[in-house]
């Protein structure tokens, strides 16, 4: 018999490992769970690597907080809730993870994604499997409209909501003049560019130039030199993830004087760029200073996890609450029943208004916020205090549909349940 260096034979190793595995199988966590009712399982697909990873941390912790709160309140339908995390990586991997969650883990719903390309890919999978997918972080209009699915819902704002929000502010401040676009070169960026161009055209603005930047770019200097030479009145960025961070930092480095506006903005990349480096006007889906409830929730989050929550944490927090609320409303764990309960589902999650899923695009109707990047002098702590909330759009007296994809653009054809 061949002996290893330390004297363990392969056979004795297999024996030992086998006994260990069997023991764990009987008395390990799974054994204990089967005594109580099966838990409600939610699959969470979020990027933990790559250029979108910075927002991923907030997504998982937002979902974790919602699950912990629900479990502390006694669970849903008398069952505990369990969150199963997976990395998103790229559309190919995201599809495999979604399949694994559905077929092996037998999850009752899936939520997450930050990349629109991944969300689109997962949408096709969940539709076939008839499992609800709540998109909490992908912005592309396509997901809601021309490539919509019966089982796909969105709590993250769509590109039209974001652009209408910032557009509203820019119209009021007469900032439709000569624009220069800089855009992330993938599904999200292209979709956002399309929406932003429509907005500019509608308001008789001029497009001075447009650059497509590969995702994960570390150096923007050559694009910035181009912008500098073009001398636009406004620089409008359609960037995502760490690309936003690098753009902000280098924009400041090159000292370009033109005002910046963003199509979609997240707080994490801005924090990472540093207070004082992010100057301009941006739309946000949530920020911790919008009202008292949000500030209190942010305080709780900070105490638990050591960082303030950003908009992605809110999107996943509300996403989990919607899934659990729909399960309670449906009184069932069947995909179709959960989905039907989500249509028109109403919730007020820290925004001080009644939010609901609109029927035709399964999009959460909600207000957005125009924020202004603070200078270093204006920031109270030079670290977290990076934006000033300027305006809530639509205003309290206006319908939430005012910034959503107009009904006239509806081309969504949903499959039967």
């Amino acid at each position, binding site marked *: 018999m061949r002996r290893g260096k330390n004297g363990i034979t392969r056979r004795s190793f297999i024996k030992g490992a086998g006994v260990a595995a069997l023991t764990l199988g009987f008395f390990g966590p799974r054994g204990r769970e089967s005594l109580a009712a099966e838990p409600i399982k939610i699959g969470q697909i979020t990027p*933990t*690597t*790559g*250029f979108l*990873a*910075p*927002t*991923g*941390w*907030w997504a998982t912790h937002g979902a974790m907080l919602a699950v912990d709160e629900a479990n502390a309140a006694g669970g849903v339908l008398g069952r505990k809730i369990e969150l199963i995390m997976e990395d998103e990586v790229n559309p190919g991997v995201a599809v495999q993870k979604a399949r694994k969650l559905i077929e092996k883990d037998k999850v009752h719903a899936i939520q997450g994604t930050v990349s629109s390309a991944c969300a689109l890919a997962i949408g096709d999978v969940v539709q076939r499997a008839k499992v609800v997918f709540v998109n909490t972080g992908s912005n592309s209009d396509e997901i809601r409209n021309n490539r919509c699915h019966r089982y796909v819902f969105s709590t993250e704002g769509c590109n039209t909501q974001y652009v209408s929000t910032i557009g509203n502010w820019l119209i009021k401040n007469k900032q439709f003049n000569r624009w220069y676009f800089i855009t992330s070169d993938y599904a999200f960026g292209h979709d956002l560019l399309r929406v932003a161009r429509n907005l500019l055209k509608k308001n008789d603005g001029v497009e001075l130039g447009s*650059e*497509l930047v*590969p995702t*994960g*770019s*570390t*150096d923007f*200097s*050559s*694009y910035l*030199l*181009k912008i500098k*030479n073009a001398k636009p009145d406004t620089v409008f960025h359609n960037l995502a993830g*760490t690309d936003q*961070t*690098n753009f902000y*930092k*280098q924009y400041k*480095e*090159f*000292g370009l004087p033109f005002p910046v506006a963003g199509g979609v903005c997240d707080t*994490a*990349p801005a*924090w*990472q*760029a*540093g*207070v*004082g*480096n992010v100057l301009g006007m941006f739309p946000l889906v949530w920020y911790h200073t919008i009202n008292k409830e949000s500030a209190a929730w942010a305080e709780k989050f900070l105490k638990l996890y050591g*960082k303030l929550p950003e908009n992605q944490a809110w999107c996943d927090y509300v996403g989990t609450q919607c899934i659990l609320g729909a399960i309670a409303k449906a009184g069932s764990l069947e995909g179709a029943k959960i989905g039907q309960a989500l249509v028109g589902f109403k919730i007020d999650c820290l925004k001080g208004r009644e939010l609901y899923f609109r029927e035709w695009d399964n999009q959460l109707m909600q207000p957005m916020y125009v924020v202004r990047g603070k200078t270093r002098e204006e920031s109270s702590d030079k*670290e977290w205090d990076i934006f000033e909330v300027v305006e809530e759009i639509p205003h309290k007296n206006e319908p939430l549909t005012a910034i959503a994809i107009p009904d006239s653009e509806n081309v969504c054809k949903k499959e039967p349940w």
Partner: protein
Amino acid sequence: MTLTNFFYYFLNGIVMGSLYVLMAIGLSVIFGMIGIINFAHGVVYALGAYAMVLVTQQLGYWPSFVISPILVGLLGMVIEASFLRRIYVGDPLRGLLFTFGLAMVLEQLIRIIWGPSGFPYLIPGYFAGTAKSMASLGIEFSRYRFFIFICAVGVIFGLWWFIEKTPYGMIIRAGSRDPEMVRILGISLKPIMTMVFGLGAALAGFAGVLAAPLAGVQPSMGDNVGNIAFVVVVIGGLGSFWGAVLSGLLVGEVENLSILIWPPIAQSAMYILMAVILLLRPRGLFGERWERFE
């Protein structure tokens, strides 16, 4: 396209190129001496940036500027002495696999220790803004980028002097070409190999230190730059010092000028350059015939 405009791009290409050169020389020195293709080079670059941020918080900019590359170099030496050394014998693929795995482990460690969202790190006050000395010539260029260029040139020439003019450098050069002979002469290559791996790591770390204020300091910041370093080494010729310098600058220029001339090609331009050069000179621009690697 005016001449000044073109000049900006050219200047910027040189600055970015000089960062690539630092990365590529480290990779090249390690390969020449140890015969390992170091896939962890990009992560070491990220570690340099992280060291810069963390040490700055404790000691300020300049001490960190000096200490951070040294720390990264020391880490490299520890890795060499405790792991890499064990796999020199046998299939060279093992080294490649090891560093490939090491890259993933280190990147994940960064995530676990410092979180996935990275740190903000600003350009120090005295380098912020554009260079005034050039303004009189009608050129506005980021002051910090000039600083990067000057640092890179200093390190490149310092390294050249070290490798060409000092006895240690002589051992490195000799050991790269014919380790057997060096051993027969009674010189132990073990400590030299440790030192060379540390030196390569320190160079990548230094590139990370310089890049920290430019790009976001986050776990995957080295992915892109690591790939470019490989392309640079292949174009310049494996193991060639001046080959790496020339090809680093060349790649920087090609990348930047392609954005000016035809942006859609920017991302693939350097790979096209690599393909063309490999067709014309299969060993790269300055690649020599090394018996060890034939």
